[in-house]
């Protein structure tokens, strides 16, 4: 049995920025290996893992997609030993001063992000936010050492270790979307001794934060009948209270909107209700900001669904999630798959 919390904590400590998912991918592969029948790494770095169904061939396929890439920074300049940088993924520059980072240079170098004092910046009102272009990373090394080790384009990961808060709440960076990778792992564990009919493709997608690259390419390679994007959604908390947000630790969300097939939604919702798994309707009036957006329009189109795990402080280094919701997402997926009839697609309806 995989200890999910331990697996997640280890995964959170590994770098894996968009297009450089290697360290995260290897760790996921080693956790999934005993749970699946075959695994491939896609040409752009997604991990495709197949757990074969028990039905007769050709079997229908369901794809579970959780992106494994993390947001971070990239070096844009080296001046007198200080590094300037830009973002990989959407980052609020107001969060950065005072953070510890790892610069993936000729070797991994610890550094700190800091802001210059106002006297060394363009004329400005004091204590206004410092734009990203004026922030810098200090490695604590001499200018010569820094120039020797670092080059423009080097990646920068957040380094803060995850922390555990009471009642199985985890906080740290890159919980978006490593928690969904953990949820897929929970699902694979649960299916381990289950005679499910369908083939299950567990995929840790690459490059979601920048291009949805994995979301576009995994379904093309796999050609699933059903595809589920498992991603984080915004939990209620300071600064987040409107209709787009859901309580932390009180259940998962199911997307409603153009990227979600209503028949697929209904079937999963029925399973959740039967099992008393609390689910919230997540309204997506213009579309989903997840891999589902890409997966739905691959090849001749795919029937998709979005499951959301509520997370506080999204895209900050102190994202927060409840282990309970990770377990719920995994359990819901496994329970749905365990009861998926071979003729599900034939009976799938657009309208009631």
């Amino acid at each position, binding site marked *: 049995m995989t200890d999910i919390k331990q697996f997640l904590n280890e995964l959170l400590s590994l770098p894996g920025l968009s297009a450089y998912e290697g360290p995260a991918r290897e760790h996921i592969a080693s956790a999934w290996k005993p749970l699946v029948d075959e695994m491939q790494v896609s040409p752009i770095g997604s991990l495709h893992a197949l757990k074969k169904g028990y039905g007769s061939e050709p079997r229908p396929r369901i794809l579970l997609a959780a992106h494994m890439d993390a947001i971070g920074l990239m070096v844009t300049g080296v001046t007198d030993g200080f590094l300037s940088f830009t973002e990989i993924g959407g980052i609020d520059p107001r969060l950065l001063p005072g*953070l510890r980072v790892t610069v993936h240079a000729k070797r991994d170098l610890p550094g700190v992000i800091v802001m*210059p004092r106002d006297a060394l910046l363009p004329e400005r009102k004091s204590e206004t936010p410092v734009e990203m272009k004026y922030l*810098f990373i200090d490695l*604590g090394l001499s200018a010569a050492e820094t120039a020797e080790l670092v080059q423009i384009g080097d990646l920068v990961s957040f380094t803060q270790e995850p922390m555990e808060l009471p009642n199985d709440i985890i906080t740290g960076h890159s919980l978006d979307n490593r928690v969904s990778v953990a949820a897929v792992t929970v699902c694979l564990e649960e299916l381990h001794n289950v005679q499910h009919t369908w083939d299950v493709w567990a995929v840790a997608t690459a490059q979601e934060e920048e291009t949805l690259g994995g979301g576009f390419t995994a379904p093309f390679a796999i050609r699933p009948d059903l595809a589920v994007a498992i991603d984080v959604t915004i939990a209620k908390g300071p600064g987040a209270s409107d209709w787009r947000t859901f309580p932390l630790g009180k259940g998962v969300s199911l997307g409603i909107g153009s990227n979600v097939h209503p028949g697929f939604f209904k079937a999963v919702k029925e399973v959740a209700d039967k099992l008393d798994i609390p689910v919230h309707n997540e309204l997506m009036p213009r579309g989903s900001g997840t891999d589902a957006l890409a997966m739905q329009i691959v090849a001749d189109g795919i029937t998709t669904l979005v499951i959301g795990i509520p997370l506080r402080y999204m895209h*900050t280094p102190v994202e927060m999630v409840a282990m309970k919701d990770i377990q719920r997402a995994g359990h819901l997926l496994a329970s749905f798959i365990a009861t998926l009839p071979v003729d599900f697609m034939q009976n799938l309806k657009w309208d009631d």
Partner: protein
Amino acid sequence: MTAKTLSPVIDKEQIALLEQLSNACGILSDVGEVRKIVLEKIQPYCDSVKVDALGNILATRKAQQPGALRVMLAAHMDEVGFMVVESEEGGLFKLVTVGGIDVRYLPGKPVLVGKDHVPGVIGAKPIHLMKSDEMQTAMDLDGLRLDVGPDGGDKVKPGDHVYFATRFQQVGSSLVGKALDDRIGVVTLATLLQYAPANIELLAAFTTQEEIGLRGARVAAYGFDPDLAIVLDSTPAHDYPSYDGSENRYFNTRLDAGPAIYVADTGTISDPRLLQHLFRVAVENGIPYQIRQPGPGGTDAGSIHKQRSGIPSVSISVPGRYAHSPVMVSRLSDWRNSLTLVHTALTTLPQDILQRA
């Protein structure tokens, strides 16, 4: 007891003590955790140790000769941080800053709360919910919350102090920590007690309440009634490039340029006789030093020099970048040279220094 002729050094033992002290937590007079570590360390080397009404540690080493000058050395134990002031539902709390912290350093940081170091975070609104111009405005304290998790609220209460959760780290010749200001001075002072010069009466004050009001030092100086005082502190270095490549004229101090000697700051004009002695000792012994740019800021000297009928005072700081942030950075070389400068200045202190014009 250690031989008195030995020169003190900053080595593994001192760095380990700094690590322990930088990771420890203490604000204003709430410095019990720091005080306990310091007391344990210095007890074996002192002729007397007491904790006074403000929580200062007052420790002495007697001189080995009669009529020796009574020299007060001060380093403050308290650091900057926050206090929990209001409790809300679900493990959320309002904070105020204690000491000069730039609120722009808060969002997105892990923190520790109270004596038990309860973990928490200061979160921020997800970028996904922001309006386009929202990032132009700084997040103010009213909008930020301490979050210890939905089920963690009963471990925290208003009145608890909150600290950045940064753990100390040595990176090459750099030292990174949340509370180098002024635990670095505390370790220097503890080391000087261990290697006390025989020619002076050493009066060591590990002070409280420096960050607001210089209050601990005020009563410590009254209690000691010294002939003169040297304050060991930490001061900002802003020695990085200007945004447009122009000359940086506002550096305050620079890393790797030696101990920063204060001539004048907001609270003190340093005693010229003590200054001349420090400069002479540094030059004669080839100890690098720099003069801190006169200007805003201050140390315990601000309250010490005005105590009783007046106490000639000077301050010497280890420079550090990003003071009062979660990640202050100092250099080993500056720390070593600070210790050497102070120790040498004390062992060569002229008996008649205060009689000079």
